């Protein structure tokens, strides 16, 4: 009897222990998670993190790392291997989970962690050729002496850190999701680069454009989706002369394919991947030295995509932001030069409609049936058997979805292949390895020869007074309009005929106007001999930046900081007066009239406390919807003219049939005002409530994010903040006898939500403050690496 009782007690204890040690669905194992010695409690930072420490490790010579008050590591090494070893180790110490998780996501391996719910995402990653692309990168890394060695040393450093970890020391997200760090490798760096390349350049509107042309014809398309919109100020000034003999341009085919889609209409997603950069020549600055500014806009996340570091070798030091997982400073400055990037706003991807037969094992091209190449992808799934997926490749690129498959991303339909510059990129980040070491404009230009993807407008300034912007990247040689719509995959005229030679890429160096600038708008005016796509960002930010810079004299660095925080609403400047003159006031009640008065008095800036931006943006959105809902069918996947081109239509011709149709324009304006104003709550009318700016955790856990920030801006302002997308890094650098730089990013150096350093930069960032970022000289050491 007693034995049975004892057994029951032991069994009960064992069962409860088992339950507490087991994860159910997305709920972590409670006992494991709550154990104060090994569980999440362990992740609470209870003492200063960057304290003096000596680490015996795989370095060749001693390396010292000094942390400043912002917890920025300044790494002093005597050779490349040690520098990148230490960089890998130190970044992993703050950001391991982010690096590991992002690369697994890029590789389509989330099912290993999250189970079957991530399967479609994983398939999509592999179907869109991420595996192949990353291996192309890897091959290029491995065969490049210096850069390959840097990537390998970095991996050694990350792995040395991982090996030093006890299970209780892993970041909290591992404990929440129930997985463990895996060893780092150059392939993971390749996935990291691939991931970034995809974020910046993997998009296409070819399907919706084709459907729209199908409905309305070429005249409508050319009018509302112009190749070169009125009012555009290109990045490379319009008067630039091209000192080269262009390659012959391939000829356009006679017939163009059409495509249609049954996908239900969804709001056009505005990715808002935009950025600003500029550099002012010494002739316009107070000090006589060049000043450079950059603020790349990305999805703002915690942990941040950026990690501030200084990397020093005898003879040179580079400082700025790095990508966790990738060696070198990506955006920043050294003792001689400063540089920054904005995304080239056009498309680097073409969509091909295919004729397939025999279960997609053959496709028609140039009158012949050619075989597709099959590559097998094995997806491990947590708690379920492996899934084997086959990716079919044509010479264009992978077929994303085959007949009868349900697209995960609506921009690809069944039977379409994609060609993307990201697939053939090799070692774009070698460019940053070289720029970190650049001493002059010539060094910078030499570094650009390695850059292929994602296409960037790289801004440059140096202590010799040079300022320049270069379109960096490899651009396909195309006929005008090629890839604008879905391409005919069987017609060789739609193949990419080659590449624009990199030495023909557009650039401007010390232009007459005394500054260079870019904000993702059109790269060049139509006089540039090659076709460089059409679908760029609206001209709003670019025009405001140029206008402000042109008006400035005796520029000081703080002028640049203020310009980064400029909230002018270009659309309101252009169209609000017209709307105010058009609206029928006799239909408005007293509170609507009061709203209109505040709009008349509004200074046209998207400042956080104002109600003007709220009323205007809602009014404009309602009017835009009202206009095009009458023109477009209720269902279907189409592209609507954007704000800029709609405003142009109103300014050019308010009697246009598109504006009037069944309802006169004035009635639309009035109705749009009334319906949008009615929805506004007087308590929360200040703009910041609607801007809804926040920095969110990568997993979307609300409590790991910032919540709504008290911030100004708008997607079309220079201060391009919009929801959780916005300036991911700000730099202002003056290049005098020494480089004086200031910068900030919305996050914190630590990736640990249990650290006071997790989001400690965010409020200063929202207020537009910049931190001094001096290049530190060697002296003292917080963490010292010594050879084994």
């Amino acid at each position, binding site marked *: 009897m007693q034995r049975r009782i004892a057994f029951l007690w032991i069994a009960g204890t064992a069962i409860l222990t088992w339950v*507490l040690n087991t994860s159910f669905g997305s709920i972590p194992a409670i006992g494991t998670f709550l154990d104060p010695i090994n569980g999440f409690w362990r992740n609470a930072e209870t003492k200063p993190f960057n304290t003096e420490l000596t680490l015996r490790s795989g370095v060749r010579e001693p390396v010292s790392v000094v942390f400043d008050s912002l917890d920025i590591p300044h790494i002093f090494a005597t050779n490349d291997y040690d520098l990148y070893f230490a960089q890998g180790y130190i970044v992993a110490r703050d950001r391991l989970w982010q690096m590991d998780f992002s690369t697994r996501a890029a590789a389509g391996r989330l099912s290993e962690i999250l189970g079957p719910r991530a399967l479609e995402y994983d398939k999509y990653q592999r179907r869109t050729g991420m595996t192949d692309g990353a291996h192309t990168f890897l091959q290029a890394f491995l065969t490049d002496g210096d850069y390959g060695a840097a990537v390998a040393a970095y991996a050694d450093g990350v792995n040395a850190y991982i090996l030093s970890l006890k*299970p209780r020391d892993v970041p909290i997200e591992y404990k929440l999701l129930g997985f463990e760090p895996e060893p780092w490798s150059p392939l993971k760096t390749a996935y990291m680069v691939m991931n970034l390349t995809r974020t910046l350049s993997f998009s296409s509107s070819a399907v919706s454009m084709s459907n729209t042309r199908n409905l309305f014809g070429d005249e409508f398309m050319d009018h509302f989706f112009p190749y070169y919109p009125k009012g555009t100020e290109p990045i490379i000034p319009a008067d630039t002369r091209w000192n080269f003999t262009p390659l012959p341009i391939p000829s356009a085919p006679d017939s163009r394919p059409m495509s249609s889609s049954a996908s239900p209409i969804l709001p056009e997603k505005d990715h808002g991947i935009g950025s600003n950069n500029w550099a002012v020549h010494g002739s316009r600055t107070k000090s006589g030295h060049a000043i450079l500014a950059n603020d790349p806009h990305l999805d703002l996340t915690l942990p941040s995509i950026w990690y501030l570091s200084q990397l020093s070798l005898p003879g040179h030091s580079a400082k700025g932001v790095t990508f966790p997982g990738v060696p070198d400073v990506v955006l920043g400055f050294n003792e001689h030069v400063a540089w920054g990037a904005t995304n080239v706003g056009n498309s680097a991807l073409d969509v091909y409609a295919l004729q397939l037969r025999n279960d997609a094992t053959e496709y028609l091209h140039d009158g012949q049936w050619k075989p597709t190449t099959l590559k097998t992808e094995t997806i491990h799934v947590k708690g379920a058997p492996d899934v084997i997926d086959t990716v079919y490749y044509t010479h264009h690129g992978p077929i994303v979805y085959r007949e009868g498959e349900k697209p995960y991303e609506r921009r690809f339909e069944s039977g379409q292949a994609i060609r993307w510059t990201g697939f053939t990129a090799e070692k774009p980040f070698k460019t940053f390895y070289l720029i970190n070491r650049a001493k002059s404009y010539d060094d910078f230009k030499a570094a650009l020869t390695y850059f292929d993807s994602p296409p960037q407008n790289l801004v440059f300034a140096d202590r010799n007074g040079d300022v320049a912007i270069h379109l960096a990247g490899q651009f396909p040689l195309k006929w005008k309009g090629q890839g604008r719509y879905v391409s005919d995959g069987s017609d060789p005229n739609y193949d990419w005929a080659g590449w624009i030679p990199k030495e023909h890429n557009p650039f401007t160096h010390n232009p007459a106007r005394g500054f260079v600038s870019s904000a993702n708008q059109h790269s060049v005016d139509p006089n540039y001999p090659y076709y460089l796509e059409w679908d760029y960002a609206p001209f709003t930010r670019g025009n405001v930046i140029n206008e402000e810079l042109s008006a400035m004299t005796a520029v000081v660095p703080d002028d640049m900081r203020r310009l980064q925080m400029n909230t002018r609403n270009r659309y309101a400047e252009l169209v609000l007066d017209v709307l105010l003159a058009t609206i029928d006031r006799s239909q408005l009640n007293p509170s609507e009239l009061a709203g209109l008065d505040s709009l008349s008095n509004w200074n046209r800036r998207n400042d956080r406390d104002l109600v003007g931006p709220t009323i205007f943006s809602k009014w404009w959105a309602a009017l835009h919807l009202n206009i095009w809902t009458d023109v477009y069918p209720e269902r279907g996947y189409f592209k609507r003219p954007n704000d800029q081109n709609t405003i142009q239509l109103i300014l050019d011709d308010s009697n246009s049939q598109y504006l009037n149709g069944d309802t006169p324009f004035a009635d639309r304006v009035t109705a749009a005002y009334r319906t949008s104003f009615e929805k506004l709550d007087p308590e929360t009318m200040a703009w910041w409530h609607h801007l809804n700016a926040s920095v969110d955790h990568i997993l979307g856990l609300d409590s790991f994010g910032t919540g709504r920030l008290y911030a100004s801006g708008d997607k079309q302002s220079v201060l391009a903040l919009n929801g959780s997308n916005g300036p991911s890094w700000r730099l202002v650098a003056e290049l005098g006898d020494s480089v004086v730089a200031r910068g900030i990013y919305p996050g914190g150096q630590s990736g640990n939500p249990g650290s006071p350093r997790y989001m400690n930069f965010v409020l200063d960032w929202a207020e537009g403050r910049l931190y001094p970022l001096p290049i530190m000289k060697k002296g003292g050491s917080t963490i010292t690496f010594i050879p084994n």
Partner: protein
Amino acid sequence: MAWFFIYIGGMISTLLGPWWTIVIVAIVAGFLFPSSARSAFWQGMIGVGLLWGMSTITIYLKNDGLLMDRVAPIFFLPDGWILIPVTVLIGALLGGLACTAGWNLRRSVWSPSSSTS
């Protein structure tokens, strides 16, 4: 004395191994230290509860509750400090259960008369 054995033993075992080694320590404590069933349960609760309580309170205070305030909403708890009683309660219940199980094991090996003191 069982509670003290669990407190010290559990600290060492979970520093060296996974969290559930504290369950084994509590079973062993119940087995080694003669008492009544009720006393074994309380000693188990106090041993684990005290260890986990001291640890969580110390961490909470030193971290200003920063991490707990961010973790609590994931488990639908309104405030970070509530994770302290939740953690302690789960640990203590398991400790009490395990210690009593150890005590019963001892009874099944030795006669009931020799197991009281």
